[in-house]
């Protein structure tokens, strides 16, 4: 299947939903669901189709825009389609189909996400980042019921724009130095650029992606945006959007920054460690459950950045594996905490008493996800952290590795706070009780996904796939050869 269809399918959805609204209002809901299924299936088919390269317009990669499918792309396509499908179902239950424009934005961001993952062209990457970011700013602020959400969206907008600016400067410098935009060609010619230019290119790209992914120092928007957004949106932000930027970081780090390897990866290790520590320490101090989860996301982003900074195939494997684990667990956590916070009409942890008796299954799922994120042994979070630790040890990065294990202790500490609150006594009975069948089903599926991921190192194909991602990604020459063949 042609890779472009993974981008076109959600685009078609976004362009068609308004027409449905104008001409057949009743069918909007059905259309949203069908397009969701279609987009997910297309992406999965593209992922299943194996390695492929296609150039838009039938040109050579040099003049046209290439789309590339390799194992890293495959992994992230699967991650994105899982995350988007889960979030779409939750959103359909939470919002209904009245705000159809929300779904337009949703599909646009889906298309942009797939575009970022598939594209092999630096400027095209930037364009898709723009669609994706604009959609993200807007869905964060939706619905504009409180100043808090609008402020969060605004903050995200400012920071995101600064990040986009840095990305653009970096791309412009790269183009200025080489006259090329295709990533495979750039990987060949960029190292020949003057050192000073190269350092600016790398610096700008890295800093831009730091903002987009929420790594310190560009993390300031993240806690606000993730905690003020509506539940399905928060889940999407944490589960997929952050990962996509990290995907770009992985791709660019191993493809373009070749000649400055050590310095780049040192920067990644350094800032990853700072991010991890800061995220954990801030999460430790939160009273608001969604802010806690948001800061925990910051910490996990730090973990993944450390994994990338290990600069080895093991590190990339750990990063991808951890991205999957974090997607499954954090989406689940956001969905569950959304339901529980709605029951209590408050996001304050202190007021979450007695929810175990109120919604035992949701709370148990919360415990599972929290244990997974914190890295309690047999669960998936532990497995990926172990992969990461080994990669870090091989790299000789002792301090990041120590930070990761110390972070495990801290995260167990702050996740236990809401959990003990749930199991604790209730001052009053929760006033609301709305059934959440769809959210419940998604949470159950995510929990199942967590368990499957926990077994991934023991399931042959999955393990092979993960290892292949690491191997292929680190091997930049292979990518170049495949694109320019």
């Amino acid at each position, binding site marked *: 299947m042609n890779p472009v269809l993974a981008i076109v399918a959600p685009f078609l959805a976004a362009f068609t939903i308004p027409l449905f609204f104008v001409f057949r209002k009743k069918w909007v809901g059905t259309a949203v669901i069908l397009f969701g299924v279609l987009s997910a299936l297309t992406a999965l088919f593209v992922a299943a189709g194996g390695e492929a390269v296609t150039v838009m317009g039938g040109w050579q990669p040099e003049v046209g825009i290439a789309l590339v499918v390799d194992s890293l792309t495959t992994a992230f396509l699967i991650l994105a389609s899982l995350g988007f499908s889960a979030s779409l179902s939750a959103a359909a239950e939470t919002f209904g189909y009245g705000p159809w424009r929300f779904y337009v934005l949703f599909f646009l961001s889906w298309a942009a996400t797939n575009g970022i993952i598939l594209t092999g062209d630096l400027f095209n990457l930037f364009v898709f980042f723009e669609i994706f970011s604009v959609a993200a700013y807007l869905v964060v602020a939706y619905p504009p019921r409180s100043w808090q959400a609008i402020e969060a969206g605004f903050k995200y907008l400012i*920071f995101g724009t600064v990040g986009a600016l840095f990305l653009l400067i970096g791309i412009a410098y790269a183009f200025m130095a080489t006259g090329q935009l295709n990533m495979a060609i750039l990987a060949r010619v960029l190292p020949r650029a003057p050192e000073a230019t190269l350092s600016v290119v790398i610096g700008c790209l890295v800093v831009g992606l730091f903002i987009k992914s929420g790594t310190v120092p560009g993390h300031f928007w993240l806690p606000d945006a993730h905690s003020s957004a509506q539940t399905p949106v928060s889940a999407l932000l944490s589960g997929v959007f952050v990962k996509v930027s990290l995907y770009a970081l992985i791709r660019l780090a191993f493809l373009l920054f070749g000649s400055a390897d050590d310095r780049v990866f040192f920067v990644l290790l350094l800032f990853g460690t700072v991010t991890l520590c800061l995220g954990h320490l801030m999460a430790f101090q939160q009273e608001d459950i969604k802010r806690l989860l948001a800061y925990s996301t910051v910490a996990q982003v730090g973990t993944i950045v450390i994994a990338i900074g290990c600069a080895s195939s093991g590190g990339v494997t750990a990063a991808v594996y951890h991205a999957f684990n974090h997607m499954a667990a954090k989406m689940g956590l956001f969905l569950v905490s959304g339901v529980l916070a709605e029951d209590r009409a408050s996001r304050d942890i202190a007021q979450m008493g007695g929810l175990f008796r109120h919604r035992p299954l949701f709370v148990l799922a919360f415990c599972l996800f929290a244990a997974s994120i914190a890295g309690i042994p047999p669960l998936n979070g532990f497995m990926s952290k*172990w992969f990461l630790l080994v990669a870090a040890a091989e790299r000789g990065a002792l301090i990041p590795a120590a930070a990761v294990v110390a972070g495990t*202790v801290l995260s167990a*500490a702050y996740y236990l706070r809401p959990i003990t609150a749930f199991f604790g006594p209730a001052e009053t009975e929760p006033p609301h009780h709305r059934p959440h069948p769809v959210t419940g089903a998604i949470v159950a599926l995510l929990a199942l996904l967590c368990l499957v991921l926990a077994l991934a190192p023991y399931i042959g194909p999955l393990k092979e796939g993960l290892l292949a991602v690491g191997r292929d990604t680190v091997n930049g020459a292979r990518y170049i050869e495949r694109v320019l063949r």
Partner: protein
Amino acid sequence: MTDPISTTLTALAAVMTVPAALYGWNAARSRLYRLLPWLFLLFAWQAITAPNWLVFVVFLELSSLTLFFFVLSKDRETAFLYLYSQLAGGACLLLGTALAARGGALPAVGAVPPGLFPLFVIGLGFKAALPGLHFWLPPTHSKAPAEASALLSGYAVKMGVFGLMRLVEAPSPALMAAGVVMAALGALQAPLQRDAKRLLAYSTLSQLGFIVASVATGTEEGRKAALLLIVAHALAKGLLFLTAGSLEEAYDTRDLGRLGPAARDYPLLFGLFLVASLSLAGLPFTVGGLAKGAVKAALADHALTQAVLSAAGMGTTMALAKMASFGFLSSGQRKGTGRPRPLPPLAWLSMALFAAALVMASFAALKTAGAEVATKNVLVDSLLLIGAVILFVRLPRIFRPDRTTPDVADLLAPAGRMLTIPLSRLRRLHSGHLTFYLALFFGATLVVLYLLRP
């Protein structure tokens, strides 16, 4: 990995868990707790028979986690203290394992590269309560439910020691020093406590000191002696914690200053207490006495260590004498706790099981050790025992249960306060001022560019 050590410890785990599970069967709490001892048993077995350090750490953490939930049912703060300390130890071990796995294969449970030895010792030190890292032990043991204390003191800390046993293959003076300090510290602290279970906790610390010192010799003999003492201590301490728990159940207090003449109300309980404490104190021909003898024999080359351990043994005896005297024998001090509550039959059954195990272990040990070894030090041991009791009787002032003693754990609160300062700084950094954020960001961008300079 199967060898005498893991086989013995596997069996010991079962012997410890069954009475503990029985004891807590009817406690007033969620029924899920009935599952916990068995979970603990499962994880402990896995840890003991682990093929490599990773599996060992994983199951060690899981067993700590089950005990954490036990403690959580009674006291939240202590539970968290316990969990953090255990997780910190686990984290060290995990890091060490990752570093040891650098070459490719997972490191088998055994000796590690010399550079990583301290990291592993620290990690296991959290579990085995090496001095300085023992801050969690007294509060946790005293505030946990009795059966959890029995498992904690009887088995959980021993898993850390088990790790040390595998780790230490050559004599390690540092570890021996740690063991001696532990034994002395526990022996000094135990007789001065007023909380019955805290007293037992310090006595555990002291006994662990014996075991660690014996392990630190790095010889096969030392390991065997340590194993014997582990068994002796586990059974005796399990029974002791259960009796202390029964006292608390009956009189609603663990304060030795307020406990009354329990020997009058529950003569049988006192009998069980005596069985356990005599073995623990090292009465000749009991398993405890034999084990201590074996430890001292293993430490034959280390005279100073031997001397300190003998003194520490007297401390243990004095502590147990104090518990017997104030907990079971003294009269008229009890204030308003009303009539004692009857103990459930399951509690009796579990304690009886422990006592039976203890007696059987004594016979078995006697049989394997032979009469010659058993009678070797009878005179000295008896003299030490009697001397300790005499000391206790002659110095009533020191042992009166009316004060508490300072410990490392007291440093935790000020340390926590110190820690809040950087935390609140960090919080103030996230003030919400967009311009400030941007300034920080651009500053960091400069740092990145600087680091990437050609």
